[in-house]
């Protein structure tokens, strides 16, 4: 019984932190702080998963998201020079409406679903299997197709990011050694037929001559 109470307390604590941090993500002024709050959200979510005995997912979330993705994100946000003031315009003005809509929706949801009567059926219990083992089996048997489609989505994300972000510098100067060594005299020098002598055009030319 004590164990269950402890688990409940932990759940509530982590859930509150997660929701609070998520609120901070969208409400703090400084984008770097927002990213850090997002890290906290992920971390709390990882703890929640840990409570639900999904150890592998929790670790993956910490290692992949908190460890790698968010750090990268932090770099990007720090490099971007974002002017904070214009982004705040209208925030306070729309805040009451937004809160009002959110509260009404929350009440409706709670009222309709009826939180107290609800006992969500749990998924199949992976008895006698470690979390990672079960996840691996599930991913590569039952969920192989979605797993592969997710891989395709990642590929598309990569290609799309390159298409949208890569700017080929058309003005850069570079040498083409193949063309350089293949060149022939005829391609470089053009022989122009000219008259042997011309009449002196004007006084300026004469002046230049005398200076030389």
């Amino acid at each position: 019984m004590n164990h269950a109470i402890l688990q409940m307390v932990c759940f509530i604590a982590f859930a509150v932190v997660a929701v609070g941090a998520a609120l901070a993500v969208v409400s703090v002024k400084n984008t770097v702080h927002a990213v850090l709050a997002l890290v906290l959200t992920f971390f709390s979510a990882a703890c929640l998963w840990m409570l639900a005995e999904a150890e592998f997912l929790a670790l993956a979330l910490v290692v992949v998201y908190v460890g790698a993705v968010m750090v990268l994100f932090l770099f990007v946000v720090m490099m971007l020079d974002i002017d904070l003031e214009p982004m705040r315009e209208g925030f306070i003005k729309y805040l009451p409406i937004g809160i009002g809509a959110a509260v009404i929706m929350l009440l409706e949801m709670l009222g309709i679903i009826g939180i107290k009567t609800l006992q969500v059926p749990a998924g199949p219990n992976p008895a006698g299997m470690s979390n990672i083992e079960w996840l691996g089996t599930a991913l590569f048997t039952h969920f192989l197709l979605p797993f592969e489609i997710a891989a395709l989505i990642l590929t598309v994300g990569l290609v799309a990011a390159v298409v949208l972000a890569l700017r080929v510098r058309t003005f850069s100067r570079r040498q083409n050694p193949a063309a350089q060594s293949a060149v022939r005299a005829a391609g470089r020098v053009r022989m122009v037929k000219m008259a042997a002598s011309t009449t002196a055009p004007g006084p300026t030319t004469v002046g230049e001559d005398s200076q030389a």
Partner: protein
Amino acid sequence: MITLNDLLVMVPELYLTAAACFVLLFDVFINDDQRDATHWVAIIVMLVGIFLVVHGQPDTTATAFGGMFVRDRMAEILKVTVLIATILMYVMARPWLRDRQLFMGEFYSLSMFSVLGVMLLVSAGNLITVYLGLELFALPAYALVALNRESKLSSEAAIKFFVLGSLASGLILFGMSLIYGATGTLDLHGIFAAAGTTTHPHLLQFGLVFLVVGIGFEFGAVPFHMWLPDVYEGAPTPIAMYISAVPKLAAVGLAYRLLEVGMGPFADDWRIMLAIMAALSLVVGNVVAIAQKNLKRMLAYSTISHMGFVFLGLANPTPEGYSAALFYAVCFALMETVAFGVILALARKGFECEMIDDLKGLNRRSPWFAGMMAIAMFSLAGIPPLWGFIAKVLVLKAAIDGGMLWLAIVAIICSIIGLFYYLRVIWVMYFEQPAEGVEPLQAKPDLALRGLLSINALGLVAMIFFSGPLLAWCRAAFGG
């Protein structure tokens, strides 16, 4: 667990995956001036795709990967139409893209991945495959809308599309999680079975609302239509053509899979929601289209009103209703390709042909293009005996049979209102003088474009006589 049979069922999708990766790499190894090779390879890939879809179609519904992937007749029709629409886009887009320095290989590979997403989506038998198919379709589409990075309008459209699209997929995902919570299964047939005997009907209904909202976003139905006009206007015209045709077909598949296959026991709930969205789309789409001066925006609002018609069919959950909706979506996709094809053919370097006024006196400059545009407009307006009329009659009949006479009356009144703006385009083309200083047509639009556009337009006319077989095909898809 995975047998060869699973892979055989999925041959068209596996093929397209390989082909899209091939095109992606192929394009890297050629020079910019050889890009035509990518173009023709992409078209051949799509043609072979159509062959594989039709040729390998099993007589009965086949499933793969434990019911995650379903290959049935409805998926076949949608896949074939999507592939045809994509081929039309490829051919008609080339001159336009080339004139604007947007002729790049990624246009082809991204759109192939997007088509692949649609193919997986319409064949999905599981909530996860539905969602992933939707994402795989949408993600390349966002990038394609932003393809023209120089254009601010284009970037704005892409951001709007991306944000609202993410919102829509978030809503769908939330709905799915509620449904999963109530039924404990992700399989659509399992959900159907569990929904009939559920002890949490409210939870399921709540999830259903989110699904319907997400579907409304995909269709661009009022009140979730805000992104559509801006995306049509801002996207490069060939991409606007793609977005006008392909996602609507995908959305029919999405609606059928989620609502009928999955949430069938709640049909009485969702058909009312669809009917309300249909009525709103018809009214808003048709009325607002009248005020548009931009041809692409006008087509966007016209699309919204047409989505109302598709919902009219879906709101009658019987084989007749679904086949009418499917028929309508197929017909609509091929009409939009003509309308956008004419815009693409008339556009040239530095001139977009986006405004309705740009079509002034088109009949004098080019009777053939004016004629094709007229066919498209008459067909969209639903003038008898054209294809659009047949499709409209079918969905109206479905709605009346489904006991929604009021909706059918709204639809008829709205399509009469809609006549105004379709006929205005025709008026402008035939009875107004070209504006001062407007050049005649560009020297000669691309031969392939002219040819395929003509075939597309004449096909619309020919479909008057071939509607029967297509309708029979659609009916057979739903076992009606």
